[in-house]
């Protein structure tokens, strides 16, 4: 498998021999990965492939794993706090303290990253305004839609201007225009030299946004390279098709036939 990007530079994230198991279940199996500055990594895989576990390890949420993870040369097991400072994390599922207002929530986040309020306060206001949440700054988030919460989380993830941004399904719940904004944001951030680790199921977005795609299944990396190089290896087609070739156990077209076949068996009972 090939790696794109500037290999001459030191990697921002270097994962070597990473394994993790929950009891008898091996979730990650000897993963090696080097990620370079300015790369947008599309990290894809079916449910239960080990995506979230990788993300949790990178964010310092899981510390008991085998192997080594270095972020900007810092070992995450030895100094998790230093690594956390460099990383901005946007969790999936829109998890936030909904009884707080966006401003309160972001102030808490800024405080934990030890940002100077004189810098962070105008920054968060500008970002909220840019996302169209200007009128909702002082409202409790329990009334917010999923998309609004996702916007607040995105801001919380980049507020401290991290060099690495980990996005776990960042587009879920966002409306079409916000999706465009976020996609644009991702490529701008990458141009500024930030490294983006993008976890998602949405193949079409991953295909467009990422300049390197890492496909993981059953705890191992199956494919790693630019979309174009993957196409060359697997034969032309969309990322969706490549994904299913590598991960699906059954022929998906047969599955669809079986679904349709279910009507026939009952003798055309449907209207």
């Amino acid at each position, binding site marked *: 498998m090939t790696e794109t990007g500037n290999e001459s530079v030191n990697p921002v994230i270097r994962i070597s021999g990473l394994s993790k198991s*929950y009891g008898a*279940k091996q*979730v990650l199996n000897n993963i090696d990965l080097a990620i370079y500055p300015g790369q947008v990594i599309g990290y894809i895989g079916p*449910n*239960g492939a080990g995506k*979230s*576990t990788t993300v*949790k390890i990178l*964010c*310092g*949420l899981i510390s008991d794993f085998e192997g080594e993870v270095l972020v900007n040369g810092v070992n995450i097991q030895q100094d998790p*706090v*230093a690594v*956390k*400072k460099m*990383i901005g*994390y946007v*969790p*999936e*599922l829109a*998890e*936030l*303290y909904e*009884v*707080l207002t966006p401003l*309160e929530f972001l102030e*808490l*986040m800024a*405080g*934990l*990253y*030890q940002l100077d309020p004189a810098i962070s306060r105008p920054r968060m206001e500008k970002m909220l305004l840019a996302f169209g949440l200007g009128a909702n700054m002082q409202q*409790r988030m*329990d*009334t917010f839609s999923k998309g609004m919460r996702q916007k607040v989380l995105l801001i919380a993830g980049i507020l401290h201007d991290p060099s690495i941004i980990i996005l776990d399904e960042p587009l879920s719940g966002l409306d079409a225009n916000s999706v465009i904004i976020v996609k644009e944001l991702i490529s701008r951030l990458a141009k500024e030299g930030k490294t983006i680790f993008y976890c998602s199921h949405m193949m079409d977005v991953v295909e467009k946004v990422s300049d390197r795609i890492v496909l993981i299944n059953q705890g191992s990396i199956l494919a790693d390279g630019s979309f174009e190089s993957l196409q060359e290896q697997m034969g032309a087609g969309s990322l969706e098709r490549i994904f299913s070739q590598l991960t699906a156990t059954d022929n998906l077209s047969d599955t669809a036939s079986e679904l349709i076949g279910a009507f026939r068996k009952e003798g055309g009972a449907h209207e």
Partner: protein
Amino acid sequence: MNKISALFFWLAMLPAKLYEQMGANRSQLALILRYKLIMDDRRPNTFQQTQVNRKKEGVSRATYGTMLIALFMGLLNLIAFAMGADDITYFTIYFSFFLFLLSATLISDFTSVLIDPRDTQILLPKPVNDRTFLLARILHIMVHLFRVIVPMLLPAIVYLAIEYNLAVVIRFLISAALASLMAIFFINALYLLIIRVTTPERFKSIIAWFQIGFMILIYGAYQVMPRATAMENLQQFTVSDYSYVRFLPPYWFAASVVHAWWWLLVSSIASLLSVWIVVRYLAPRFNQKLAMLGGSSESLVSQKKNTGSLASETGYVKRLAGILTAGTVERAGFLFTWKWALRNRGFRMRVYPAIGYILVWFVISIYRNVFQLGESGETGLKGSAAGLLGLIYLSCFIFISAIQQISQADEYKASWIFYSAPVSAPGPILLGMLKALLAQFFLPLAIVVSGLGFAWKGWVVVPNLLLGFSNILLISGLLLLINYKKLPASLPANKADGTGNFLRGLLMLVFNGAFGVAHYFVYGFPIVVLISVVLSGVAVWLVYQRIARISWPEVATN
């Protein structure tokens, strides 16, 4: 933050220098604690959790609520000083109450306030060191404890200062502090036990069950205790007569107030030992397990479990639906309501306490009939019409509580299935819902009441039972027509306003009571009862026909 939280915050942060020496980051610690306290204020407490009719925006003084309730419990605890013959008995009973109430209050609050699975997602990825997190959590727990303990002890402190002297108050405070430590031990042990025997995923719903059980227990205890023993007997009672009390913690705490100082030593050793066990063994494992609580997709869903029991359960429910419903739509409404009511945690939290209250009431009245009145020679429920009618008309209260809640759900948006399905009128769905609720929440009690009726009065009771149950079917049908033309699980849980609902509930009681009183007047005239049964039956038929014809515009959508 309100003033009390601000005061606690200030107190908690006084030894900031010390925290820094322990390796915590002062500003981060203060920030986390401050926001945790702010969030406590905005979150409903134990008792508000079960009430769905709160306005979310309105819950901003939750800590005052918690403290008021703790104060109220503290006042109730003063009953201890009216029971028994000597000081050691008073204090032993007081500390039993105190330990129980404190553990119970804390365990139900711990889930929502102190154990927030979102912390793993939100706080842990932030550059904050472990010491800071740990200290923030400990301080938060301490503040929370004080918010409950201080008001709970206050009435006793005032009482002791008036009736005894300052020395007793001081000893009492020391004992109470030790007792609080022991309560923390109890809670931790119980939590760990729960987490050991079950998966973290089920942990939350078990805590929900515990909360329901706790409320029923409190209600039952305050119902039963004053009745159980006559007051004169209580006042001659002394714990010293029973040697085994020396092995119970409440006695140690009481003895450290009343008796020798060496009891204080026993209490201190016991409490500190329990704290040591918590810190050394329980807490670390607890935190490990807790970290898994927030896990999402990765926590492998156990698929195999339940399928067997669910299959058999749906089997008999389907047979029941076959008997009780006509048509596929009504059947669908029945089956959906049945399953949703059984499985939805929010619904159970709101309705099951009512079941508990009614059951407690049932048990008490039956107990009085069977055991007590027999001795005193009175006739009681057994002989009187009012007693049996009371039970009959009371038996639909659980149903009333259920129909009040069945339309409210957190996942109300999923009710699009009703609106998008090609159903010309929602009447059959509502009728199916009504029947499911009646079958689930009224039928079992009706069977019990019938059994009691037969046992007490023999077959002559049949016409009156028929009239009673027919009236209840009528009342429930009318209730639905008047008030609850709402599809099951179709409305947001916090939309309804509290006062309106309370008045409606009151109205239903009056409504129900009016039928009961009317029934009481005809009770002794079998012919009139039989004619009433026929009339009531016709009315039921008409009302249920009308329900089946409810049209879309009639259904409440907000």
